């Protein structure tokens, strides 16, 4: 049987060798041209938020500013389907404010007319999730040049790079004709954005359907007096999207510290207990007399013979 198995092994290795040789031959004969989307794609810019790191905590002021940017800019196209109005309590709004925000929300919640049974809409309640700006995917695509604005609830968890990616994308729109990579190389003609798309080196395939959403400083007016530059607004809304994706971040970390400290103490105690227990069994010099394992074994045997327990 070992010969059969050895033969199987040799065959598999042989097929792998053939695969490798043919792959490498193909690679050498026609090396693949570098893709513009790999060559000109940029990694996200570094972004530092109050919630970063294991000791980070949400900055409610910033989250409220970010919420303001979402509600005045992003929410025109993007839904926030997993977040309820009542969740806003977590970023420092009071119940009364939340009720006001919900009932004043620009999109109403679909409902049924209680008298006729026909489709109708009603004002949102704090228990509702944020109503989507479009009734369905078809409506969203029809209004957006056949592109579907993704839901933003989990955006910072759903993209490589998280909040830094969102921030970089929002501030990364540039003119494709003037764009140069770090070697000063211009964009090849075939990689330039077609009609209706916009160039953004932070987007995976460089051309994104979303037009630049934050275009000028002062696009929103912050109530707390922070200067609403494009950079600031992008940072704030990225911070807000970290919160929408992970609203329990603060309590998760707080619980984490308690658990880690508890387990650390337990493990250290367990480690010392292990050494204590094994000290005799691992002792370097063999003891004589009553502690000699041989004598202990004799004692155990004698006890067992007499039927004495322990």
């Amino acid at each position: 049987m070992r010969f059969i198995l050895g033969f199987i092994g040799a065959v598999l290795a042989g097929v792998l060798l053939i695969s490798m040789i043919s792959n490498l031959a193909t690679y050498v004969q026609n090396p693949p041209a570098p893709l513009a989307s790999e060559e000109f794609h940029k990694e996200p810019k570094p972004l530092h938020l109050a919630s970063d790191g294991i000791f980070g905590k949400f900055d409610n002021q910033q989250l409220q500013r970010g919420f303001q940017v979402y509600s005045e800019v992003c929410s025109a196209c993007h839904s926030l389907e997993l977040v309820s109005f009542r969740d806003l309590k977590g970023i420092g709004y009071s119940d009364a404010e939340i009720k006001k925000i919900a009932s004043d929300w620009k999109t109403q919640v679909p409902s049924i007319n209680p008298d006729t049974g026909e489709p109708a809409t009603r004002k949102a309640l704090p228990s509702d999730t944020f109503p989507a700006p479009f009734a369905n995917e078809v409506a969203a695509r029809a209004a957006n040049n056949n592109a579907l604005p993704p839901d933003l609830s989990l955006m910072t968890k759903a993209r490589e790079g998280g909040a830094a990616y969102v921030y970089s994308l929002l501030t990364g729109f540039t003119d494709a004709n003037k764009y140069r990579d770090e070697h000063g190389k211009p964009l090849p003609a075939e990689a330039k954005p077609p009609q209706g798309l916009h160039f953004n080196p932070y987007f995976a395939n460089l051309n994104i359907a979303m037009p630049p959403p934050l275009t000028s400083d002062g696009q929103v007016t912050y109530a707390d007096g922070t200067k609403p530059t494009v950079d600031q607004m992008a940072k704030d809304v990225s911070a807000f999207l970290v919160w929408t994706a992970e609203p329990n971040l603060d309590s998760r970390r707080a619980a984490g510290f308690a658990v880690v400290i508890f387990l650390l103490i337990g493990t250290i105690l367990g480690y010392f207990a292990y050494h204590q227990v094994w000290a005799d069994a691992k002792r370097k010099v063999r003891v004589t007399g009553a502690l000699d394992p041989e004598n202990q074994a004799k004692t155990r045997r004698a006890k067992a013979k007499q039927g004495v327990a322990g």
Partner: protein
Amino acid sequence: MQQKFLAYSVRNALLAVVGTTLALAAGAACAGTPAATGGTVPAAITTSGPAATTPTPQDDTMAKKQENKKAAVQLQGVTVSAGIQASQQRSIDIKRNAPNIEDSITAVNIGELPDVSITDSLQRLTGVQIDRSAGEGTSLSVRGLPEVGTTLNGLPFITADNIDSIQPNYGTLPAAMFSGVDVFKSPTASMLDSGISGTVNLRTYQPFDFNPGWSVTASAEGAFTSVNQLIMRDVNAGWLLRYAHMNGASFFFIVTYIHIFRGLYYGSYKAPRELVWMLGLVIYLLMMATAFMGYVLPWGQMSYWGAQVITGFFSAFPLVGEPIRIWLLGGYAPDQAALTRFFSLHYLLPFIIAAVVILHIWALHIPGSSNPTGVDVKDEKDTLPFHPFYTAKDGWFAGGVLLVYAIVTYFAPNYLGHPDNYIPANALATPAHIVPEWYFWPFYAILRSFTVDFILEAKLWGVLAMFGSILLLFFLPWLDRSPVRSGAYRPVFKRFFWLLVIDVLILGYVGGAPLNWWRTALGQIAAAYYFLHFLVILPLVSAFETPLPLPRSISESVLHGEGAEAAPAGSSPRGGSTAAAVVQ
């Protein structure tokens, strides 16, 4: 602020300990823990909070506040009346649909009615009179007769089986305990028991009385939202359960891989423990199936495409492949049928794993545990009792693993996952890189390494090799024929063993990373070595290797000749083997 944080931490600590234990013990707990951490309040209008005391940047004018207050009060009014209206509606429905003369009280929460005992609630029904003792309702009569039967959830509770009235003291039954009470004034054939004048059925709350929205939905439309909205946001500490469950799978695999490689090094698969090894491999296969099906349940992009790829393996087999794939999925592509059956199997398989674990331990207890020397136990001084020695040794290591597990779960819960799984499944958009979870990466690399159609299709080669890479482990006892068990006494084997560890790590890296020309080539070399190691090198090594001399007993290998040193002068030394120095 500080104080609040402290109080919070203490409560969270308790909760987290409960959570960690739960996740480890059961792994699949679905119910919410009773305490709340930053949990959101389920019903929206439980607190009206018109005072708006929290300082906010928004400048509320007095008028605005007044308006909010009014709105709050109005809303509250509506909710309460809706609750009672609904409960009255239900009572009317019960009455209307009943074949006999029946009356009923239901309430979303009977405790909300201004009643102390259940008789107070019952006296609202026509034909029911109550007796009072010191103003409190104690028993009741129906149509003037006290011979009333009482059932609890339809089963006999206390029945007037003689002419006297025997009734429970209703004064001891708090109204808040019951979800509803039915009064039957005429019996039907389906009733188990009844009194002369009538029967009272007390209905308590049942475990499944919760709102339907509070359970996991295994439907293609609802799964993603029910995981990412209900469990992660609305269920108290649901985020903890989910993250602990999801990372628990990874840590289960980490300890399993340590266990498997230790078995490979110390030759634990050799006689007389072949059965232990094979049952272990069965557990490993079941774990892989369970983990894969669990990963599909949130129905994100990676879930969906992972299911697509993995069930697609079967379609590589000629003739029968495609029908098998369709049969497994219950359709042409992963959809509702696949999701529902994966949900059931993800729940069922852990019980089968537990059963095979019992067999694994049973099979182990026939020959007994192996040891790092691979030498059989000769007499009692070679052994130590399991407790306290091995409980202490395993105890602190388990603590260490839990510590790393807790750090990942609380501080980087998504580190081992993939961002694409937070995008809802979309059958029309394929992710740029489909990768399985990290514990499948070595096998995924083997699958992808076959790129040329040589006699058979490349896909079929890949699938056969991938299944073969696990199945060959079942043949290990016959592939490695060396009579020496432990790798510690096999100098050539030991080198190849570490080469295998590096090889599997390389395969893991290649399986997880996006493909390019050099990664493909590296993966092909590593995959070829994997098969050559087990099927060619291992039999040859076991045939030609000269192992080091073994110690005469386990105790001798542990005591490095110190026995001779400690022995009185002139007595014969108790040991003195040259091999002893090699161990540990």
